[in-house]
């Protein structure tokens, strides 16, 4: 064992370690900034997935809202009312609060686990970051029609889709068609097979089965005041409502 050789190599290695530490130290501010940006990007991307699961059913896949029922989120002055109510927090706080605690006197439910909802704090933050990403200029080339394959087509009622006016049903309800409509319009809240979801109750329980068709017709067409269930009358034709009921009956 060569003592002197060990000490010389050790000293050189120690100098190299120190020099590397210094170099990395100088690069740290840039690295931290990049990491923080990437973390915000990841949060927005997660928020987008959360939005599709929880929010898009009402506020529209593209945040375009539902005229007269659910406000659009992709507009500039969406959050300007916070000044009217003496809210002193930041815009981010305000959006976060609206999602967490819901909006009094509107159909917006409280989403945070803190207020009985299904979402954790970090999920609310992701949604907030995603929703706020609509503020400010949007890139060219955003297409309103939905991405990709057919089943992700927009729920009926989004701008650009012809709205059928209510008319008498043309026949018996068709449960296969009803399923399609259900998946598009109802499943976001009531679950993919009507078993109930984060927001909407189950529609397949014995209780629900005992209710008559008129109850369902009324609820789907005009909504349920005091709950998050909107009126689908303006969006679905009478035949569509029959189809959905037929589908529900087939599940019950």
């Amino acid at each position, binding site marked *: *064992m*060569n*003592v*002197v050789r*060990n*000490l010389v*190599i*050790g000293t050189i*290695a*120690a100098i*190299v*370690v120190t020099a*590397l*530490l210094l170099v*990395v*130290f100088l690069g*740290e501010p840039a*690295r*931290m900034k990049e*990491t*923080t*940006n*990437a*973390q*915000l*990007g*990841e949060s*927005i*991307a*997660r928020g*987008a*997935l959360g939005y*599709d699961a929880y929010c898009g059913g009402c506020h529209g896949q593209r945040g375009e809202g539902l005229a007269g029922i659910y406000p659009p989120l992709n507009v500039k002055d969406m959050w300007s009312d916070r000044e009217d109510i003496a809210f002193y927090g930041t815009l981010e706080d305000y959006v976060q609060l609206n999602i967490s605690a819901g909006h009094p006197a509107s159909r917006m439910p409280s989403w945070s686990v803190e207020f009985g909802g299904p979402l*954790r*704090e*970090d*999920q609310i933050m992701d949604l907030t970051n*995603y929703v706020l*990403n*609509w503020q*400010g*200029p*949007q*890139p060219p*080339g*955003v*297409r309103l029609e*939905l*991405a*990709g*394959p*057919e*089943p*992700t087509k927009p729920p009926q009622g989004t701008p650009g889709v012809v709205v059928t006016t209510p008319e008498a049903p043309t026949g018996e309800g068709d449960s296969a068609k009803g399923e399609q409509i259900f998946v598009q319009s109802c499943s976001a809240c009531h679950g993919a097979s009507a078993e109930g979801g984060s927001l909407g109750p189950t529609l397949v329980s014995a209780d629900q089965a005992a209710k008559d068709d008129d109850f369902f017709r009324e609820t789907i067409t005009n909504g349920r005041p005091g709950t998050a269930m909107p009126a689908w009358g303006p969006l679905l034709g009478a035949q569509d409502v029959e189809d959905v009921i037929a589908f529900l009956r087939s599940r019950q």
Partner: protein
Amino acid sequence: MAESAEEKKPFVEKARGFTNEWLTSVLGGMSPKDMRELLQGEPPGRPNPRYKVHNVSFWFHMKPRWYPKSVTRISYTFALGWISAFLSIVLGVSGFILMFYYTPSTGQAYGDILTILGNVYFGKTLRDFHRLGAELMVAVVMLHMVRVYFTASYKQPRSFNWTVGVSLLLVTWLFSYSGYLLPWDQLAYWAVTIGVSMASSIPVIGDQLSLVLLGAPAVGQPALLRFYALHVIILPLALIFIFGIHYHKVVRQGISKPPSVDAGDKPDKERVSFLPEVFSREALWVILGMLALFVAVWTFFSAPLEMHADPQVTPLHSTAPWYFLWIQGLIKLPDIFGGIIEGKFIYGIVIPGIVIGLLIGLPYLDRGPARRWKDRKGMVAIGIVTIILWVILTYMGTPAYKAKASAEEEIALEFVPYDRHGEINEVPWDQLIDGDYGTENFTESSVIAVDPAHSGSEAGEPPEQLIEFMGDLSKAMEKDQDDLPGGVAMVSIRIWQRELKRVDIKITWQEEGEEQEFFQHTYIHRAFAPH
């Protein structure tokens, strides 16, 4: 002037005497002259002043004054025990610093990790350092045990120290496993959920035991706090205590000599002093070890961090840490008791328990004095078979073996996953060109046909990585022809929001005469897409 010089002389002399005295006490009994000789590589005088240090200094008294030359050969011990001690100090220091930035609360833990990565100088270095050190520690401790087994160093008089060593292995596993939960991400949450479900499969006491471990029926806030306390207080204390015994025995009994030397085949008269030979070598190793760890975390090693823990979302594959994969592999074996006793209990608790029991009892079961391979062929064979079995079981524990989800889910997970670790995440941002692409009849021109203006990252260049992505997807669909007859995958890319793109995958195939469909989508933000 001359007068003043005369006056000064006694003072200089006094100062020199004082300095010598002070240095001698700092240097642990060596005079500055002895030290100078040591550094110049000169042989020590007699009596050896360098041995005195081991009587005087607290730190040096822990080290032996000299070693038989035969045990200092690297190819004999590979210094594995030394490396594990070095790593535990590295882990202790890096973990101690990390503690300042971490709160063991389910609401904050994950955010704290993000802060460490994005808002702390050397934060990522520290976390990677700690994680890499932990992985290496487990590996090195296990290799250390393998070395001691094959050189039969566990035999008398070191039987007891072997059992102490096995308990250090258990402590290391628990250390690593309890640390696994702390980032509170999906990986952590599900790995611990699976692990504890094994404990709860123990008949009679299982549920109570799981309640004690988790503090609640499921992994949650109480479990996080318990694992944290285990990780930062209880296990460190246990480690220091048990390591103290282990190391004391090593120094007292000496490192076991190589079997050939022990048997008298080779002479062993030479000694190597700790000061300066072994000391200078260990100091060099410390610095080189730090250099290697730093280079590893700054070049290729990055501690994984999955999405925030979510009890509602079960990942498609949740794997145990690699050193527990052999248990996961065991669990996949067919149930032998026809469901009367849970397979999880037999394979997850009883068999690992027997294995550890055999390990602890090894020196008391194999009592013969033979240490050379040729004298203990049976034990060497058992060791090799055990390692082969371990490797096979470890492979069986990975998702590659018998844990496949349905083919369409696997393909969607591999190519367009929710969690940013898929092939689509390797396509640069500029090449994610708005359009629909199908695996059916996919050619290079079908990308360019979508939007000739966007024909690539730079004007005019074809989007190579997107084309490669589609090629790989086509191959994957072809490979799964048996599961997905007539399978076609459609990928749609849309510009979605500011700096955000959406990617959908739709897989269609024929099954029992009907067309089946599977969908998945994800979003990609410019900030985490490659450029």
